[in-house]
Structures are given as structure tokens and as C-alpha cells.
């Protein structure tokens, strides 16, 4: 039930640039070919084990059979996130993600008919309460009335029943996470519980009643205090995004502004839910001990019972080109932190594999340029890193650094720029480039060890790029990245006018 700030995407290369080595030793080429043949098998086999199927109502299924253990990993990817929220309603997608665990007309209630009435009464009092607060009236009486109505509604509740049924069935999870672009619900179960999952998951996905709303709102406010307000990284991140995007909703906090949370209502939740939780917005990835031919009819029975609805509109706002560099400083009692960002592109952009490699060369591992220079050589930072974020709408390339004791953000910032300038002027050397590709490749192969990881990636590629196969194709693209590509993209995106800088400066 956390906030996903960093949707991880694995990339991988497929075939080495053999030409490069032909001038070298024949045996080297030979060894590389053997090695690559092996890796190809490793994931081609995975790709071939995937079955895809679209239910009659439009829900897409991606199933990968893996019988190595009697367990199954389920991942429901709903194409809605913080990016779909309107002014005054920030945090609604995340709150909904929480409420999805509070049950339906069947799960989590002792008597839905009576509970429904009690909830309606509670909502009416809440509305009055919000109005009274807005008018600055004394709300004590209303608050007492509200508390009484809340307890009355709670009497019909079977607390946490949804999670309890799954937990008792031997689940890992259930959990959920949300990003700007999507909401994901996951759980892992022993493979004899597939039908139970299908029943519960489909019901809560399309029949959620947003029970326990007012208490969950309190939980979410605590989550906000914990992850954002009480944390230097959280505070900086929120400020950074706010200046990085002035038009596009990527600038809003996923968890929501406190005042929007204070004024949230069940009505708002309901209409957001009805608009976005539609079959065509849902992708289900299932990885593990299942037989697709037996699973699909079950999916049709449970997930197929929901009516087709219109596809909700996508975000039309486009972030205007930045006119000049933007900077923000958060002064708090904490040690320095620096984040630098450059506006880039969305997931389907052809430059994506190149920046993936640039992130590796600049900030991936102990031999990366920033680590070598800032940590090992100049000793101004204890850690540095970089990451190319290419989501559904245009994202950013991030660099960050944590100054070592007695050093400053400014020193870290200056050296990062120096290293970027060097990348702009000189071609990277081949060993460095091949190393970066090798790291991307092993990272991908290691990613295949996790059922949940595979399910997450399949669903993400299907949702954001339109085809899960791109998860595997990505590697071919990474492999083709050349020294010249690196130089070109760095010059293309990494310039001061396109830059956003955020720092935590210690308050004395």
C-alpha cells in the first residue's frame, strides 16, 4: 500500500555488436556468441511461455506458466494514477487504493442493506460538517453526531475481511502501490487458491464500496506525515516536483495535498472510481503454477461479469518547454541532499534505451563516472546516482548526490556538471559502454528470478507501451546504442535551460 516513486523497468540487450570484435580475436567473438546464445534461450523461453487473452469486456490477461513451485503471483494493473486527478482532488487515486482493501457488498459486511443506509447517513453529516467548517461555525455538536453515526455504520463492518481471507489462505500480501500513471494490486498465493483469488479480486476491483472511508483518511494523513512531512527526502521530492512541472499533473504529490485530503468526500471517491475502474483500463498479469486453458474460463466467469464501459479520457495537458533553469531549496535540520533533473520524454520514445545507458555510465555502480569522481577521487560525496524516468507522459532524467561531512551541495553540483560536460564533448570508450550494457543485461536476467517482478514488468510494458513483448525487445534496443548515440542524447537533453535543481540545505 505504498507510494511508488520509482517504477523500476528492466532493460536488456540481446545480441552483441559482433562487428566491433571482428577486428579483434576470433576466439573472443566465438565466446561471446556462445554466451549470447545462452542468454537468448534464457528469456526467449520465458517469452514463449506467455499466453495472452482479452476477456469479452476488454480486460487483458497476460499469463506466464512456471511450474517450479506450487505458487502464483497475481498483479492487477489499473490504468489510473495521480496523473488523472483534478485540482482539489489530489490524493484521490491513492486513497482509493487503500479503500479497495475495505471490501464490497459481500466482503467485509454483516448486512449490506442496513450498512448502506448507515453509510449514507454518515455521508450526509460529513457534508454538513465540511460546510460548517468552511463557514467557520462551531462544529462540536456535528462532530459528536458524526462520531455516533460512524460507530453505528462500523457495527455492520467485518474489519479487514478481504485481507484476512487471503492471509488465511496463505497469501504473501495482499498489497498495492501507486504511481503517477497506474495503481497496482498484487498478491501471491499457493496455487490451489487461484479461484479464491479470482473471486475476491474481481469483486473488490469492480464492486468496492469505499467502506471505512473516514478512518482510512486518517491513516493516509499519517502516511503523508511519515513519508513526506517527516522526511528530508520526502520534503525535497515534493518541492522538486512542484517546480519541475507547472502545468502537467506530474507536479502534484501522489499522496495529495493535506487540504485536499481534509476535504475529500465519499462522493468524489465514488465518481473517480466509476470513471476509471473500467474493464478496458485493467490488465491482469499472472505468473506461476497455472494452466492458461483452465484459468481463462475462470477469469471469464469472475472478471468477465462486469459490463463494458467507455475508456476514460487521457491527460491532455502538455508541460510547456521550460524557459530557464528552476531551483528550489528546502531548509531543514538535516544534512545536504541534491537532486538534479532534466526534462526528457515518455516511455515509447526512441531515445529511451540511450538514456538508460547514460544513467548506467554516470551513476550505476562503483565504476560509474560520478562515483569515481565525486566519491572515490574528490571525496565530496558519500553516495551519488542517476536514473532515467520515462513514464507514460514525458518524464525526467535524475541525478542525485549526498555530500560527505564538511562538504556542500554546491561542490557536488559543480562536479556533476563537469562530468556531464565531459560526456557532451568526448565519446565514451567502448569498454565503458559494453560494461554498462552488460550490467543492464544481468539486471534483466536477475529480474526473471522473481515471479512478482516478471508480473509487474509484463503489466507495465503492456499498459504503457501497448505490448508486453517490448519487455523483451528493449534489450535489442539497448544493445544497439552506440558511442555517438550517447553523445547526441546528452547534448540533446542536458542543458541548463532544461534543468531543475532541488536541495536540502542544513538549517543551523
Amino acid at each position, binding site marked *: 500500500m505504498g507510494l511508488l516513486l520509482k517504477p523500476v523497468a528492466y532493460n536488456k540487450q540481446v545480441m552483441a555488436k559482433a562487428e566491433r570484435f571482428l577486428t579483434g580475436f576470433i576466439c573472443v567473438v566465438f565466446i561471446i556468441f556462445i554466451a549470447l546464445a545462452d542468454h537468448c534461450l534464457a528469456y526467449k523461453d520465458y517469452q514463449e511461455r506467455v499466453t495472452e487473452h482479452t476477456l469479452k469486456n476488454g480486460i487483458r490477461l497476460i499469463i506466464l506458466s512456471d511450474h517450479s513451485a506450487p505458487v502464483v503471483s497475481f498483479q492487477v494493473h489499473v490504468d489510473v494514477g495521480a496523473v488523472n486527478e483534478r485540482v482539489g482532488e489530489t490524493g484521490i487515486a491513492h486513497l482509493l487504493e487503500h479503500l479497495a482493501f475495505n471490501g464490497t457488498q459481500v466482503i467485509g459486511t454483516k448486512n449490506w442493506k442496513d450498512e448502506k443506509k448507515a453509510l449514507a447517513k454518515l455521508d450526509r453529516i460529513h457534508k454538513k460538517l465540511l460546510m460548517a467548517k468552511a463557514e467557520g461555525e462551531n462544529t462540536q455538536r456535528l462532530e459528536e453526531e458524526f462520531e455516533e453515526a460512524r460507530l453505528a455504520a462500523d457495527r455492520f463492518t467485518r474489519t479487514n475481511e478481504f485481507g484476512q481471507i487471503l*492471509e488465511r489462505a496463505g497469501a*504473501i500480501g495482499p498489497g498495492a502501490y501507486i504511481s503517477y500513471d497506474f495503481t497496482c494490486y498484487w498478491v501471491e498465493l499457493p496455487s490451489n487458491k487461484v479461484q479464491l483469488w479470482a473471486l475476491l479480486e474481481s469483486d473488490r476491483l469492480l464492486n468496492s464500496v469505499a467502506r471505512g472511508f473516514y478512518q482510512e483518511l486518517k491513516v493516509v494523513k499519517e502516511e503523508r506525515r511519515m513519508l513526506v512531512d517527516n522526511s528530508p527526502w520526502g520534503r525535497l521530492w515534493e518541492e522538486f516536483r512542484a517546480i519541475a512541472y507547472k502545468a502537467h499533473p506530474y507536479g502534484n504529490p501522489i499522496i495529495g495535498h493535506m487540504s485536499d485530503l481534509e476535504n475529500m468526500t465519499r462522493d468524489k471517491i465514488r465518481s473517480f472510481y466509476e470513471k476509471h475502474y473500467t474493464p478496458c483500463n485493467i490488465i491482469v498479469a499472472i505468473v506461476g503454477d497455472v494452466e492458461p486453458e483452465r484459468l481463462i474460463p475462470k477469469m471469464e466467469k469472475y472478471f468477465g461479469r462486469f459490463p463494458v464501459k467507455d475508456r476514460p479520457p487521457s491527460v491532455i495537458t502538455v508541460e510547456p518547454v521550460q524557459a530557464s533553469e528552476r531551483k528550489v531549496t528546502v531548509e*531543514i535540520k538535516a544534512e545536504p541532499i541534491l537532486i538534479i533533473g532534466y526534462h526528457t520524454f515518455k516511455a515509447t520514445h526512441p531515445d529511451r534505451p540511450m538514456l538508460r545507458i547514460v544513467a548506467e555510465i554516470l551513476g550505476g555502480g*562503483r565504476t560509474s563516472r560520478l562515483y569515481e569522481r565525486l566519491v572515490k577521487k574528490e571525496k565530496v560525496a558519500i553516495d551519488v546516482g542517476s536514473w532515467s524516468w520515462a513514464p507514460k507522459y514525458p518524464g525526467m532524467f535524475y541525478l542525485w548526490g549526498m555530500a560527505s561531512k564538511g562538504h556542500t551541495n554546491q561542490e557536488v553540483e559543480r562536479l556533476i556538471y563537469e562530468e556531464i560536460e565531459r560526456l557532451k564533448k568526448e565519446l565514451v570508450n567502448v569498454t565503458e559502454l559494453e560494461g554498462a550494457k552488460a550490467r543492464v543485461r544481468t539486471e534483466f536476467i536477475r529480474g526473471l528470478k522473481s515471479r512478482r517482478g516478471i508480473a509487474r514488468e509484463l503489466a507495465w510494458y503492456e499498459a504503457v507501451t501497448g505490448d508486453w513483448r517490448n519487455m523483451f525487445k528493449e534489450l535489442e534496443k539497448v544493445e544497439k546504442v552506440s558511442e555517438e548515440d550517447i553523445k547526441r542524447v546528452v547534448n540533446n537533453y542536458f542543458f541548463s535551460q532544461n534543468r531543475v535543481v532541488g536541495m536540502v540545505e542544513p538549517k543551523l
Partner: protein
Amino acid sequence: MKRELKKIKKGIIFLLVPVFLIGCFPKRDTTRDFQRLEFVELEPIEVPEYTRRELKNGMIVYLMEDRTLPLIHFKALIKTGSIWDPQDKAGLCDITFEVIRTGGGGQRTGNEIDMKLERVGAQIEAGADRDMGWVCGFSLKDNFNEIFSVFGDILRNPLFDQAKIELAKIKIRGLIARRNDNIEELANREFRRLIYGRDNPYARIVEYKTIEKITRNDLVLFYNNFFHPNNIVLGLWGDFESEEMLKKVESIFGDWEPREIQFPEKPIIEQEPIASFNLVIRKEATQSAIRMGHLGIRRDHPDYFASIVLSKILGAGWHSRFGRRLRTEEGLAYEVWAWQTAEFDYPGLFIATAQTSLGRTIEAITLMKREIELIRQKEVSYEELKVGKESILNAAVFWFDTKDEIIERLMRYEYYGYPLDYIKRLIEGIKEVTKNDILRVARAHLKPDKLTILVVGNPEFFDKPLSSLGEVRLLDISIPQ
């Protein structure tokens, strides 16, 4: 004949009526009958085949083949830990393990090793906690031989380059400077120190002055004390053939001479639990971090199995009383739970935690404490017990769903001297836990009147003064320069 025919017809009609009637009713919607589902039994869990060998020099080797991906993983557990750091040189174990990895090995400098690994996407990392040290990594199958020989160099012939020792110190100083920036981390650390004792090796922290004192010679001594083949459990898993792999292991580690190891006395933990209220004031905090608890049990305690079920019912998961009552019903906190940490080799913690808004701090403490009291007063319900046990036992299949966790668990048992089939005993043990066990164990091991309570937050905004609960001790967490 006619009559008989009539009879048959009647019979048919008689038979058809109910069928017809059933057909008249709308077909039952079974898509929401979760109680009616039946589950086939899973096959019993089998531990996959593995090889355990002891080399002539005493090194224990575990091997497990896993041909699904072209990867090989390796991990060495070295019997040591930071509990054996000299008091005035706290941090020695951490720095040693950092520089084992970064300071070069055999014929290669640290930077050369970094290059060698990262050029082929391989990794080797080293680290240690209070009672375990490890060096581990992975590589693609094709690069394994060269990477494994680097691993051998790191373990057998570390160079401890002075420049890398300095670099490690800079990193640790940076972490010391930042150690109060995260309130959660701060609360966990200070709570541990309250329970085990501020300077007890099981809780003490590294300071600038203890780091300054550490020299290269200390690292070499530390290494010489503990890094011997007879003090190492080595595990390999992945895409290989076991007999062939054993030969490789022999060729890298076979001629490493064993030596008798003199372990110092293990530190004594002698804190008697007493009720206390402790406060760290953070003016900028928007939330209180609450920790409460006392010294717990070791994992080999006969009450451990019942303790797991007890924790599950009291404070962990959707079903637990904490989860239902404090999170969902009270909306008290995003995270609130209680658990026995039960370490392998020393008493763990009984700890309950919550992060709540400042204005509900005392309320939260009271509610958490009440739940701990209640579970000691009367037996849990039959349903709670059943659900608690089922949640654990049905999920036991996930203790075996990857070879990584199976072999790493075996290595841990070997390392701490637990029986290798301990996981089976654990499952059997949990099956046998009764309501009465839960009550007995709760009474024996939970001490609500002797809780050490720590709050990190801004008391100006507490719902009531913390002193309304008892005498408050202010903790000084300023970092000694």
C-alpha cells in the same frame, strides 16, 4: 402394459417437475460464494536436493543446482560480527568488511576489481551485522570462473589499501552526520540502546572518535582473527553441475590452511526490564514515532513456536488485533505492529511500534499497551488461533519457492548451529500450538507493566503530557564531535 406406461409417464413427469422448477429459478450466481470454494491439497513440501561437504580444511560447502537461468550465486558466511569490536574502536568490523571488498585482493587493486566485475555485470559485496559477516555475489555462468577467482582473492588475500580505509571512514562519518535525519531510524536505534544498554555491543553505535582510532593494523588483526576456512560456511547455487563445482571450490579454497580460532567471550545482556518513559524531542516532527517493549527470547527457546502464533494474533498482519483495532478501526497509524524478533544467537526484542499524529501520541500508547495487557488476561478465541495458524502454515509454501532462500536458510542454520531440518520442526511446532500455549507464553514473555516506552516527536502538541503516564527521561541524541 398401459398402466405401466402411465406409471412410467407419471414417473417421468414426477421427475421432470423438480427439474423444470429448478430451471425456473434464476441460475444461482456463484461468483461471490467465497465460503463455498474447495481447495485441493498441495503436494507436500520437498526440500530440493543439495550437497553439503566439508573440505579438509574445515570449510563447509553447500551446493544447489538451479538450471532455470544462466546465473551463479555465491556467498560466504564468516563467523564474526561487530559485537567483538573493542569498545573504543566500535566500527572496526564494518570498516573491515567494507575494505575487504574495496581495498583490493591478490594481484588486483580495488579499482581493478570494480572494473573487472562491472565490465561483465557481475557483483561482489561484503558486509556484517552484530553476529554475522558475509561476502557474496553473482555472475553470469560464462564469466563465473574469473569472477569466482576474484572472490577467492578477496577472501584469502585482501590488500586493505590505506586509501580505501580513508574512503570507508569518510562514508561512515557521512552516515554518522545523517543518523538523526530519519526519525524512524533514530527511534529504532535509541530503542535498542534502551533495551540492551547504551554501550552494550548488541546496541552500541559508531562515533567519530571510535572511527578515528581504527588503523590498518586493526583491520589486519581483525582479519587474522576470523578469516579462516574452518570459520566459513560457503554456499553456491545456480546453473552448474555439483561435482564439477566442488572441484572449482577445491581449487580456489582447498589449500587454505585452517587455524584454531579464539573467540572472545560473548557480551552479556543483563538488563532487567523496568517500566520507563523516554522522550526524544524533535521540534520539526509532524508525527510521533512510538516504540515500546522489552528484552525478548532467543529463537531456540521452547516457547518460540507459540510466540510466532502469538505475535501473529497480537500484532502482525490483517488479522491481528493491532491491525484491526488500531489501524483500521481507530485510524491511528499507517504502520502499527508488535512482534518478537527472536534472534538466532541472543535474546531479541519484544517490540510494538507505531507512527501516529502528535495529537494522538498518549492515546496510541494507551491503546497499544491495552492490547498487550488484554492478550495476557484471557485465552484468544478458537477462531483467532485457527486463523493465526492457518495464515502461517498455508504461506509456508513460500519458504520454499525459490532456491535462493532455501540454500541461504540452510547456511544460516549451519552457521548458528541449528538443526538443518529446523524449518520442518518449525512447521510441526506451529501446528501443535494451543490456545492455552498462547496464554501461557503471553503471560511468561509479555510484560506490559515493565515496558520501556520511547517517543520521538514534539511534546508541545501531544494530547496529554507524556509525564501523565510516569516519570519521563529526556534522551540526548546530539552527535558527539
